[in-house]
C-alpha cells in the first residue's frame, strides 16, 4: 500500500555513505512487510538494495546468507552434495505464508529482522547454528547467534540504525541429518508450530521450536534423548515465555502439537 507519511527515499551508494540515522527512518529491503501495513511512524526509507551488501556465498566454511538476498534466490541455490541439511532450505521457504511471488522480493534478512514467531528464515538459521553479522551505526561489526538476535515477537537485538548484513551458517551444521515438521490451522496457512531437529555424526541432537513460541527455542542434547526427557526439556524451556497466542492457534494447542511433532522428530532422528 502507499506509505503516505514517507517523505523521502534515500539510496546510499555504499555502507560508507550512510545518512545519519533519524527517528522515523527504516531500512528498506524487499518491502514485503513494510508495504503490507500502514507505517504511520515512518518518514524516510533507506534502501538497502543499492548498498551491495556482501552477496550470498557457498564456501568450505559454510553458507553466507546475504541479508538482502531474496527467499527465491535462496530456494534456487545449489548446495554441495554433502550438505545433507539442504532440503531444509526448501522446506523453510515453503513454510512462508506468502507465495512464490512474495519470495521474489522478500529478503532473508528482512525475515529475521521482522522477528515474527512464524518467521521461517529464523527457524532455518536458528536450527543450523546461524550467526548474525551486524553493522553498528558507527561502522563497527558485531556477531550474535540467531537465537540471541530474535528477542521476542517483533523484537530483535538491533539497535537503531544497525544493519543486519547477513547470516553465517557453518558447514558443520549443514552436514547434519535433519527432520522438519510444521502444522497450521489450514493446509497452507501461517505456521502454528514449526519444529526442526538436527543430528550430527557424533550423535548430538538439537531441536528448534518456532512459530509455537514467541521466540525460537533451541534444545541441545549430547545424544537423542528419551521421549520423556525431551518433553520435560521442552516444558522447562517454555516455562518463562510460554506459548504464543494469536489467531493462528490457541496456546494450549500449540503446546500439544509441538509435543507431538517433537516426538515425531525424535523418533525419526533416533533411527
Amino acid at each position: 500500500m502507499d506509505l503516505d507519511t514517507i517523505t523521502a527515499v534515500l539510496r546510499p551508494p555504499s555502507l560508507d555513505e550512510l545518512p545519519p540515522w533519524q527517528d522515523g527512518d527504516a531500512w528498506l529491503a524487499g518491502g514485503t512487510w513494510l508495504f503490507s501495513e500502514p507505517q504511520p511512524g515512518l518518514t524516510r526509507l533507506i534502501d538497502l538494495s543499492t548498498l551491495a551488501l556482501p552477496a550470498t556465498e557457498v564456501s568450505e566454511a559454510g553458507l553466507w546468507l546475504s541479508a538482502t538476498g531474496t527467499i527465491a534466490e535462496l530456494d534456487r541455490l545449489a548446495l554441495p552434495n554433502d550438505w545433507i541439511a539442504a532440503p531444509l532450505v526448501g522446506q523453510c521457504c515453503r513454510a512462508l505464508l506468502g507465495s512464490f511471488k512474495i519470495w521474489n522480493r522478500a529478503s532473508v534478512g528482512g525475515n529475521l529482522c521482522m522477528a515474527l514467531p512464524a518467521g521461517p528464515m529464523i527457524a532455518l538459521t536458528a536450527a543450523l547454528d546461524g550467526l548474525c553479522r551486524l553493522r553498528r551505526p558507527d561502522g563497527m561489526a558485531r556477531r550474535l547467534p540467531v537465537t540471541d538476535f530474535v528477542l521476542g515477537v517483533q523484537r530483535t537485538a538491533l539497535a537503531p540504525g544497525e544493519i543486519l548484513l547477513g547470516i553465517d551458517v557453518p558447514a558443520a551444521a549443514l552436514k547434519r541429518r535433519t527432520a522438519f515438521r510444521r502444522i497450521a490451522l489450514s493446509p497452507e496457512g501461517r505456521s502454528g508450530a514449526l519444529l526442526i531437529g538436527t543430528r550430527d555424526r557424533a550423535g548430538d541432537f538439537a531441536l528448534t521450536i518456532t512459530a509455537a513460541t514467541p521466540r525460537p527455542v533451541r534444545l541441545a542434547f549430547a545424544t537423542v534423548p528419551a521421549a520423556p526427557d525431551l518433553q520435560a526439556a521442552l516444558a522447562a524451556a517454555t516455562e518463562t515465555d510460554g506459548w504464543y497466542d494469536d489467531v493462528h492457534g490457541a496456546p494450549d494447542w500449540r503446546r500439544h502439537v509441538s509435543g507431538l511433532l517433537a516426538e515425531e522428530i525424535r523418533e525419526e532422528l533416533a533411527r
Partner: protein
Amino acid sequence: MRLTVNGQVQDAAPHAGQCLRTLLRDLGWFGVKKGCDAGDCGACTVHLDGEPVHSCLLPAFQAEGHSVITIEGLAAPCAPGDGVPDGLHPMQAAFCAAQGFQCGFCTPGMVMTAAALDQGQRQDLGTALKGNLCRCTGYRAIRDAVAGIAHAQAEGRPVGRSLPAPASRAVVSGRAAYTFDAAVPGLLHLKVLRAPHAHARIRHIDRTGAMAVPGVVAVFTHEDAPRHRFSTGRHENPGDDAADTMVFDPVIRCHGQRVAAVVAESEAAALAGVRALRVEYEIRPAVFDPDAALRPDAPLVHDPADREPPRPGEDAPPLLPHPNLAAEAHGAIGDVEAGFAEADRIHEAEYVSQRVQHVHLETHGALGWLDPDGRLTLRASTQVPFLTRDALARLFDLDRDRVRVLAGRVGGGFGGKQEMLTEDLVALAVLRTGRPVKYEMSREENFSAATTRHPMRVWVKLGAKADGRLTALSLRVISNTGAYGNHAGGVLHHGCNESIAAYACPNKRVEGYAVYTHTLPAGAFRGYGLSQTIFAIESALDELARDLSIDPFAMRRRNAVRPGDPMISTSLEPHDVLYGSYGLDQCLDLVEAALADGGGEPAPGPDWRVGQGMALAMIDTIPPRGHFAHARIRLEPDGTYALFVGTAEFGNGTSTVHAQLAAEVLGTVPERIRLIQADTDAVPHDTGAYGSTGTVVAGQANVRAATALADKICVAAAERTGTRPAACRLTRDGVETPSGVMPLADLARDAVFEAAGAADGSPRSVAFNVQGFRVAVQPETGLVRILRSVQAADAGFVINPMQCRGQIEGGVAQALGAALYEDVRLDAEGRVVTRTLRNYHIPAMADVPVTEVLFADTHDTVGPLGAKSMSEAPYNPVAPALGNAIRDATGVRLTATPFAPDRIFHTLTAVPEKASA
C-alpha cells in the same frame, strides 16, 4: 522516472512511499486491482521483468528502468484505455473457456500468476496459487482453467446451456470496469476518522489542524451532516429496518464508527487530515454480549435521552420490552409442551454461529459527481442502486430524479452490498464541494467497520417418537445485531422461517431476539439468518437421529415437507409460498447414493478417524414482502436488441442468464442481446439483486418484456406481409412469415419496437439443497480433511448449468470458510482484531475440496422458464453437514463454528473417551 508498461515507455513521478499498484492505476492501467493492498490476495499481480510480483508491495521507485506487464498487456503491447485485444493470451483464453471467474475481480491477478507458472508449479496448484484469493468460485473453475479444461458451450438452444458470461473477454483481459476503474479529472479523496471507543459521546472535534493540511478541502462531522436517521440496510420497504443511523452521530456506539471525514486533493492529504483531527470523547460503559445487554441495568446502545424526538415523517422507534432489543420474533403452532411430553426422545442444545465477514474482493466504496445539469450521480459498489437512490434522495431532501445511482461491474457482494455504507458520505461531500469525490474503503476498514453476518446463539429442542417422527420443535434465538439494527428483524425472521418450515411437525415454537450491543453492526449476509439456524436445527436433528438409531437421510425423509404439506414455521397466516416444484426427494437420493459409492479420497493415515454427515436446507426463492423488477427491451436499428434491467452484476451471473432468457423468448442468440443494467436511469425501479432474485424476479420481468416485444414484432411483420401474427416466428435476426423472411433490421428501420415487463416477486416457490461430506479427523491435532463433498441442488430448470454449478461450488467454499476458519474476533474493548486477510483466513485453493454438484430434475411453475434461484442457498447446509460428519468420525459434537483444529482439539480433549456413536 521512466518505466516501460505493456511496451509503452511511460514517465511517472511517484510519491516517495508510493507502491507500484497505485502508480500503475494513476498511469491508466485499471486492470491492476486492489483486494487488500497488503500482499495477501494477489489481485494486484503484475510481471516485473517477467517475474510475477504483488504490485501493492513493490516500492514504485524500484520499478524505474524496468519493464512491467499488467493484465492489459499480457496478450500484446497496448496503450492505456485500449479495448479488449483481438487475440487473448492462452491463459486468458483458458479462463474464458473454463469460466474461471464469477465477479472477476480476482481474475487479473489470477491470470497473471497462472501465466507465470512452470510445469512443476502447475502440478501443485494449491501451493503455487496460495497467494491468490478468490471469494466467488470455490476454485474448481480456476483449476480447470489452468489445466486447460473448457466448459463453455457455444451452439444450441439459448437456455439450458453453459454459455460464457458476455463480459468474459473484458474480464480476463482486465478491461471490465469495476467501481473505481475510471479516471475522473479533479477527483477529491475522502477518508474517515473512526472511533477508538465502543461507546462514547463526542464532546468536541477540533478541525483546525486538519484544515491546515495542504490539500485538505473540507472536513465533515456531525455538525455538517443531515440529522435524518436512516438504516444502512436497504429493503423495498424502508420501514423494514429501524431508522437508527446517521451520516455522523455525536454518539459513538461501536469501535470503528465514523467520527468525521476529510476530503482532500490526494489520499495522502486526506489521511494526514484525518490524523490531524483532535477529538474529545466522553467515554461511556459498553456492552458486547447480547445476554448482558438484556439485563435491566445494561448500558443502553440507543439511549432515548440521546435522541431528538422524531421529525415529521420519521417513525418513532418501536416499543420493545428492553431498550436494547432491536427486534423480536415470537410464534407457536400446536402445543409444544404436549409435543415434548409425547416424544420418546428429546435433544436440546445451544449452537453458536460466529461473526463472519463477506470479504467480497472489491471493498465497499463509491465515486460521485454532479452531472452537467447538477444532478447528483454516484457510481457505487452496490447490489441495490435503486434503493440507494431512494435513500439518498430522502436523506438529502432531493427529488428522486435529482439523484442517479449506477454500478459498474461489482467485485462481489454476498449481501454486504445490500447496505448503504459509503454512498451517503460521498453524496454529502459531492453536494458540499461540488466536485467529484471518491471513497474507497481500505481492506482494514472493510474488516473493522463494515457489516458482518449476525452472530447467533440458537438453543434448539427437538422431540421425536421412536420411529423418528418429530413431535415438537422449539427454538430460542439470540442474534447480536451490533450497534445498529440494519437487517436485525429481517434476518431474525428469515432465520426462523424456512429452517423450520422445512419440517412437518405439528408443534413448533420460536422465541427470537435481535439485540443491540456496542459491537460493529451485523447486516445482510448470504443465507440471511438461515445459515445460523440451519446449523442448529440440522445438527440437532442429527443427534436425535443417532439417539434413535435412525439413518440421517431416513430421518429427513420421515419429517421433511412434501408437496401437499403446508409450509409452516410458526404462523398459520396465509402466505404466497407454494411448491412451484419439489426436488428435495431427489436431492436426498443423489447425495445418499454419492456418499455410498465409495468415491473420494482415502484417509491420510491410520491415526485419522473417518465419518460422514449430511444436512439439508430449504429456502424460499424470493424474499417476502415485495421484490420488484422492471425490464425494458428494444429492437435496435441493426436488428439486435437492447435489454435494460435494474440488477447489478457482481458475479452472480445474472447478466448471462438475462441474455439467455431474452434470446430464448425472442428466438435469437444471446450475442444479439446487449444488456444495459444497474442504472437508475435504465428502468423505473428494481428492488435489487439480493435474496437471490437476479434470475427469478428480474428474469421474470425480462421474460415478460421480451414476450411482449416478440408479440409486437410478430404483429408488425404480419401486417406488412399480410399474414397472421400466429403464423410468424422470430428467428436469429428476422421474422419467418408465410410469405418469406422479414429481416429485423428492416422492421426496425421505420418503427420503434419496445416493450416493458415487470415482476412483483409473488408468488414464490421453494428450493432445496442437500450437502454431504465424508471427512477424516486426526484427533491428536484436531486437523480435519474433507475426503468427499457432494451437494445436490433443486434449482428448477437450470438455465446455465456451468454457472449454476459455479454458484454452488462458491457457496460451499464460502461456507467452508465459516465452518472451518473464519472468525471476526473482537478484543475486550470491542475492537476488531482480525483486520487483515492474513489474520482472517478465507479459503485459499488448498483449503477447498472438489465438491461434486448434482442437480435434481425439476421444472418450476413460478420462476421464469421453470428456473429457481440458487445463489444464497448452497451456503446454508454446509456447516451442519460438516459438524455431523465430524461427530460421526469422532463421537464428539461440535456446537460452535468454526471447527478449527485448535478448537476441535479442545473439544476432543475435554471428552477423553469416545462417546458411543
